């Protein structure tokens, strides 16, 4: 994985496979506290305590097409190499929360990458789910959700390519503005 946005793209697939209807992606960057946290919360089918222990094992997977599952192990590796770690909380029938913490200034921390694009791709490929994005940079926040966008779009499908392009532009300019406000 080249950047953290790709990890997000990947980990959210787990929530989708778990049948989640609501997924919340939070990215918290705070330069004062020197942290970058990623939290992905869903209301999917959840996991038992026993399964939670096993998911960081690369040889554990719920799929049947192959024997390895590297999504969470790779995220864990990225987090640990940048002075952080991951934690998973899950309850059967309720959902799962996965947190990955990174030391912002660590030289081994992968760059955030194109978060807006990752979010918009997830949303347009899964228009029936409500995917929420919360981005915060120091104390500035930006939030957007599939529900809000659908309300605006009305009868135009979310996966229409022109709409995807517009959404990409919208989310990415808002994310850069959130960062710009702090840096200037």
């Amino acid at each position, binding site marked *: 994985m080249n950047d953290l946005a790709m990890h997000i793209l*990947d980990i959210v697939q787990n929530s989708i*496979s778990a049948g989640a209807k609501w997924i919340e992606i939070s990215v918290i960057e705070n330069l004062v506290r020197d942290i970058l946290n990623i939290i992905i919360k869903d209301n999917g089918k959840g996991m038992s305590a026993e399964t939670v222990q096993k998911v960081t094992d690369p040889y554990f997977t719920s799929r049947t097409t192959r024997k390895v599952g*590297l999504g969470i192990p790779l995220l864990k590796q990225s987090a640990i190499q940048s002075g952080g770690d991951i934690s998973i909380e899950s309850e059967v029938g309720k959902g799962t929360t996965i947190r990955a913490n990174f030391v912002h200034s660590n030289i081994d921390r992968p760059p955030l990458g194109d978060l807006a694009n990752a979010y918009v791709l997830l949303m347009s490929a899964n228009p029936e789910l409500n995917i929420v994005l919360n981005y915060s940079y120091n104390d500035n926040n930006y939030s957007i959700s599939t529900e*809000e966008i659908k309300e*605006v779009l009305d009868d135009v499908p979310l996966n229409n390519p022109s709409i*995807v392009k517009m*959404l990409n532009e*919208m989310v990415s300019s*808002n994310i850069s503005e959130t960062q710009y406000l702090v840096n200037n």
Partner: protein
Amino acid sequence: MNKIKSLDDLRKMKQNLSSELSIREKSNNPDKMVQIRVAMATCGIAAGARTVMNTFLEKIEKDGVPAIVTQGGCMGYCYAEPTVEVKIPGKDPVVFGYVDSKIALDIIDKYILKGELIDGILPVNYQTIQEKI
């Protein structure tokens, strides 16, 4: 095109777009559209599936190709990622392997628009999982 920043801007742009959209596109009947499914599991993403998906979306937007792009999971062809499944209505789905931006454009120009087969099709006897059961 003006820059879109808020949901209000999006609403305005959508109104312009709404009139251009054909009824077929609005109803978004998946049976009549070409379905392009980009495999986006760990293996696919690590191999560059995101770039491929963006290329498809840009091309479809630019040329008005009657297709929708969705994401799929891993089909077990991790060695050949990024893989893309293309289902043209009335035809069997075809899986292309080792797809990059250039091949993605070829898939649209040659396979989808002209019906020519191109190199890189994975197993010839490919079936979806549902058909196998």
